[in-house]
């Protein structure tokens, strides 16, 4: 079962929850850090490095002797990754290239062929003996966030491991969509502020459009404020866990600790939370 931990905006405590949920259930889950622009799960876990593989994209390489300066490749490229450069033939802006292969396909003289370029890496590490953490990290200056996320999600789990937890990137755009697509369930972490409520609504809209079931985890509850709580009640959205705003949690986090370090009593609730997800998935009429 694939369960993504996501939030409409960053900084809601999503990673801290994902890591804590993973630790509390490490006997039966693995964690994929799909926040590939800012992969942070490993910072909160004592990991043992296992392996690292490069993720490549293909970019066109010009053979200037064969180029007839016809400009067909430049015209074909939809991403402004090619420009005509006089005698030198054409220029490739490799960071803008989406590896669609269009230029190589249209070139009438065979002056272009594709060559690999590293755009990120996937690291495999072990936590507490055998629980697996897979981290995707985008190389600086590259923009293929969704493709790298899909590559991380393609890594195979050990068949004995029941749950794949996914730390999704913040927001509701293409990166978020790539992380949550084809998952069975999403836990949406929201914070009790006006920004938090606004971004939660966007995330819910996105999930409803993709027809993925979800539940809300409410973070940073402050006495006297309950707009997110009331919103969930009114709409009948499942709210499965509530975590108070506390300077102690913030300080623990600053020292590299997780939610679970600050509130060890949460361990039981976090095991239950995953059971609840499993139950919802198995009872989903879609399955």
């Amino acid at each position, binding site marked *: 079962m694939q369960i993504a931990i996501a939030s409409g905006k960053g900084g809601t405590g999503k990673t801290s929850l994902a890591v804590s949920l993973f630790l509390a259930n490490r006997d039966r889950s693995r964690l994929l850090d799909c926040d590939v622009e*800012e992969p942070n799960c490993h910072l909160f876990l004592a990991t043992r490095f296992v392996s690292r593989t490069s993720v490549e994209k293909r970019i066109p390489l010009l053979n200037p002797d064969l180029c007839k300066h016809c400009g067909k490749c430049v015209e074909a490229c*939809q991403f402004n990754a090619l420009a005509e450069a006089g005698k030198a033939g054409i220029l490739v802006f490799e960071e803008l290239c989406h590896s669609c292969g269009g230029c190589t396909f249209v070139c009438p003289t065979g002056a272009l062929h594709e060559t690999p370029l590293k755009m990120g890496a996937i690291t495999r590490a072990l936590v507490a003996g055998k629980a697996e953490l897979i981290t995707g990290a985008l190389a600086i200056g590259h923009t293929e966030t969704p493709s790298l996320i899909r590559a991380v999600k393609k890594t195979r789990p050990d068949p004995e491991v029941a749950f794949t937890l996914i730390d999704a990137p913040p927001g509701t755009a293409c990166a978020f969509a790539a992380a949550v697509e084809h998952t069975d369930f999403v836990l949406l972490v929201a914070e009790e502020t006006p920004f938090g409520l606004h971004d939660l609504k966007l995330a819910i809209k996105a999930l409803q459009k993709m027809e993925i079931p979800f539940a809300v985890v409410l973070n940073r509850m402050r006495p006297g404020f309950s707009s997110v709580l009331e919103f969930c009640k009114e709409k009948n959205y499942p709210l499965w866990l509530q975590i108070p705003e506390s300077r102690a949690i913030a300080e623990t986090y600053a020292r590299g600790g997780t939610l679970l370090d600050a509130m060890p009593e949460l361990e039981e609730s976090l095991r239950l939370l995953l059971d609840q997800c499993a139950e919802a998935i198995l009872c989903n009429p879609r399955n």
Partner: protein
Amino acid sequence: MQPQELVIISGKGGTGKTSIAAAFADYFPNKVLADGDVDAADLFLVLQVTETQIAEFQSGHIAEIDPDKCRQCGKCAALCRFDAIVTSESGYQVDARACEGCKVCVNACPHHAIEWKEAFCGLWKESRTAQGTLFHASLYPGAENSGKLVSFLRDKARKKAMDEGIPLILVDGPPGIGCPVIASITGAARILVVTEPTPSGYHDLERVLALAKHFQIPTHILINKADLETSYLKKMEDCAAKSGATVIGQIPYSPLFSEAQQKGQSILKAFPTSPEAETLRTIATILKQKMDESEAEGQK
């Protein structure tokens, strides 16, 4: 006169970037505002906005197969690198969500059966606020291309500033280091990174500074919630020095930011006499000086 553009980014989300942008919006007198965090566009929640213009934003194109013309040869599916062409009982179809808009299939289809349709990724808006004109957007859920939309909003803001002789553009940038962030900083005069003293804050700061250096933009760092863990200050200063950036100030962990947010105001408006507001005004003054200096230098 060229307007100067100050972009506020954060690497990691939730460091208080938008709250700081809102405070600066109240501090600087004459500016145009752009919310480049199109994926979580929250700036408008703390400014009283009146929308004066609203339109769909065309992000690019997507392919669509005309079933009447398609002869089921499968060439498009074989060439599409994004698994966006799927087969069903009714034949070949484009999965609009997966289509990257590369046009390879359109050019390749031997029967000209694939249409090239405009794709829209969200709405862009121009709004009037007490703090100046705001350009912002709302992305359709799961939409692609927020980078293009960010560039578009910045262009709009720049044009407005040029037309009206406004000297400053203030951009609330997106989190991360990917395509929207790159689109929000290329060609900017100055970057302010709002970070926090946490392992993630520090880790992301390193990545974001590398990006700023890559594009050679003068960069300052503001440490929010600085008193949560003071051991980061030295590390962040070192990391800044390595990439030619400077730590410009620190703000303590404070509930006043969310309380101001709750009131729909910036901290400068909601709690003008608080020490937090005082510190932010000092930081803004220093930033202003730096920008004036580099402008004077540019004119020499």
